[in-house]
């Protein structure tokens, strides 16, 4: 673009920015001590923001010229590299994840982040079955996470069941709810399905808040038992019946954190293993076929309803596992942890990673959740940056990090299929 045009363009952008930001940034409504509202002006901030927009736009249009910022689905320079390194990225990531607790300098805080990231990796992989493989857009995935967490919390509180008994139960209960919800709604198409699942997630949350007698309402449930090492509790006393005492170790609070870390790593890998195996089986192939063309599936004798239900239930089950883990890790659950924004984050991880790609989802979870933790000091700006990143990544790479699909079977050599051919489902 020629400089004069670029200048005018940037000027226009700054003008729009002025219109957008002058009222809301320039005039801040504050609550005075008397309870009334008064306005505080911040024109300097508006000027700074408009200046940034002007310069940003100018630099972009001069630097990119006529091309502008365009969405790209083709393999970018770094995705091409990622694909070539694909066979080697996954094992390296896995290796790192396995030895992480023993890397010097990794303390409790880092491990806690590791646990958080792995929780989202697991949730992402679980949702990937529903959205990425079966092409069913689920905006209420957090409901199953909540059902898992509350199942464990309630079973432990009312029946005194241990974590290891509750873990499968939580998964089964979540899957059961998945089927219950899925059965009536799975014939809905795309966006309708999305909004119904969103409504379902909200219903679960409102019920959790208001059914005070059972769930403790907004205060949640505390004192949820922590997991034991196959019956050996983690305790600071170091008696013979405890983990440290049994193995003759110095009692340390880190033991439990490391154990929790390996627990979620194991659960996440289980999700991954089941998904990878199922993808090469008729069931997984039917999910993908469903995503590609539902009508053709029906004409080939595939029972569309049960196939969708199986994907929905399986995704829900892994969400339930993750929920039970969340409850035992926090020792506390409350409805606050299961808002719509969680569903949106998990879905964003799946889409940013590349629908159906296991490695992509893991990397996206690492980048989004890990990056999110790095910006911890930014406080309320953090979500702003997070949302902005979601928009930016989608605009630049609508197909996510890994936009290709690997065939599940081949006569010769498996070649990646371009994302342009792969459809993403109608329902």
């Amino acid at each position, binding site marked *: 673009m020629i400089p004069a045009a670029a200048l005018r363009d940037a000027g226009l952008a700054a003008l729009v920015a002025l219109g957008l930001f002058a009222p809301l940034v320039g005039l801040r409504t504050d*609550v005075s001590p008397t309870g009334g509202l008064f306005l505080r002006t911040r024109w300097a901030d508006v000027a700074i923001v408009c200046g940034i927009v002007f310069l940003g736009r100018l630099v972009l249009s001069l630097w990119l010229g006529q091309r502008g910022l365009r969405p790209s689905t083709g393999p970018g320079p770094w995705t091409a590299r990622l694909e070539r390194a694909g066979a080697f990225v996954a094992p390296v990531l896995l290796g790192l994840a396995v030895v992480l607790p023993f890397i010097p300098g990794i303390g409790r805080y880092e491990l806690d982040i590791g646990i958080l990231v792995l929780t989202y990796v697991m949730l992402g992989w679980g949702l990937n079955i529903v959205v990425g493989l079966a092409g069913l*857009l689920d905006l209420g995935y957090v409901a199953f996470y909540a059902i898992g967490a509350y199942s464990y919390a309630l079973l432990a509180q009312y029946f005194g069941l241990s974590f290891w008994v509750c873990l499968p139960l939580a998964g089964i209960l979540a899957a059961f709810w998945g089927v219950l919800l899925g059965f009536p709604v799975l014939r809905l198409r795309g966006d309708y399905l999305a909004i119904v699942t969103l409504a379902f997630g909200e219903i679960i949350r409102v019920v959790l808040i208001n059914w005070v007698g059972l769930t403790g309402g907004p205060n949640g449930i505390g004192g949820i038992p922590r997991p034991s090492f196959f019956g050996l509790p983690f305790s600071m006393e170091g008696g013979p019946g405890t983990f440290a005492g049994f193995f003759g170790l110095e009692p340390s609070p880190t033991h439990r954190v490391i154990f929790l870390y390996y627990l979620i790593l194991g659960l996440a890998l289980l999700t991954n293993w089941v998904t990878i195996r199922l993808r090469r089986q008729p069931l997984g192939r039917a999910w993908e076929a469903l995503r590609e063309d539902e009508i053709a599936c029906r004409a080939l004798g595939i029972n569309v309803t049960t196939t969708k239900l199986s994907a929905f239930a399986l995704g829900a089950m892994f969400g339930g596992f993750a929920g039970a883990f969340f409850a035992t890790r926090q020792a506390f659950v409350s409805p606050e942890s299961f808002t719509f924004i969680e569903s949106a984050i998990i879905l964003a991880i799946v889409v940013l990673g590349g629908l159906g790609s296991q490695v992509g989802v893991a990397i996206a979870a690492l980048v989004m959740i890990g990056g999110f933790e790095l910006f911890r000091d930014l406080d309320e700006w953090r979500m*702003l940056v997070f*949302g902005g990143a979601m*928009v930016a990544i989608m605009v630049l790479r609508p197909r996510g990090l890994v936009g290709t699909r690997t065939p599940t079977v081949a006569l010769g050599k498996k070649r990646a299929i371009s994302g342009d051919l792969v459809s993403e489902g109608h329902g």
Partner: protein
Amino acid sequence: MAYALQQLINGISLGMIYGLIAVGYTMVYGIIGMINFAHGDVFMIGAFVALIALLLLQLGGVMDGTAAILLMLLASVAVTALYGWTVERVAYRPLRGSFRLAPLISAIGLSIVLQNYVQVSQGARVKPVEAVLRGGVEVFREGDFAVQLSYMQMLIIGTTLAALAAFTILVTRTPLGRAMRACEQDRKMAALLGIDTDRTISLTFVIGAALAAVAGTMYLLRYGVIDFYIGFLAGVKAFTAAVLGGIGSLPGAVLGGLLIGLIETFWSAYFSVQYKDVAAFSILVLTLIFLPTGLLGRQEVEKV
């Protein structure tokens, strides 16, 4: 009986607000086949701009209720329409013709951005305002219970009807409305016939945002308190209204809004306030299961 009548009045005034937002969803869905996820937050921005305008007017000494409300509406519509335009420009236009999920995710991202932008710039605390219009007329009395139709409710119903009437004329009688309807039917063909589809889509967002701004102003006046989070719930309910009425159908959106407002009000009045959202969401689920095309929607035939 009197109690029910009062609820009916309350329900209609609430339903009008939902209807206004729902029109924005239904228009955008009609023209680009997308849930504009950020629309609820655009509505929230509209409420905030109205609030700021109100405070400015009070600073400027404008005390007359009607004039203040008119100016608030104007300010809110102008700024919010610009937000609507920006939303389309930033989150949707670059992804035109792309995969279906990408614009949805970028819209969710933008919704997060708008919410947190207002939280950062305006603070997280709830903003209470004093009522601009007080009083009302007593419509009906039964024993001790008087059915009130407040001036505020009259204003909401009146303004909403005026906005909808203006909007209907715009869509049915003007070249822009014709272009919009053409794009809705077949965007490629409309473009071939010389309609600037990008501009038409932009204007659709602008009009939707303007209606959301009216709704935001009315919401502020009705409830007297707002915060940065009001957009999410109102957005989901308005979307429910759009679906209930039959997505893509403009009269359907208003009808759906009224129904959701009435259901919510009556549910709160007779059953439980806590579960009023559950009622609205359950209606959504039930509608979609038993009446997937809504009340006034067109039947979609699956071509084989």
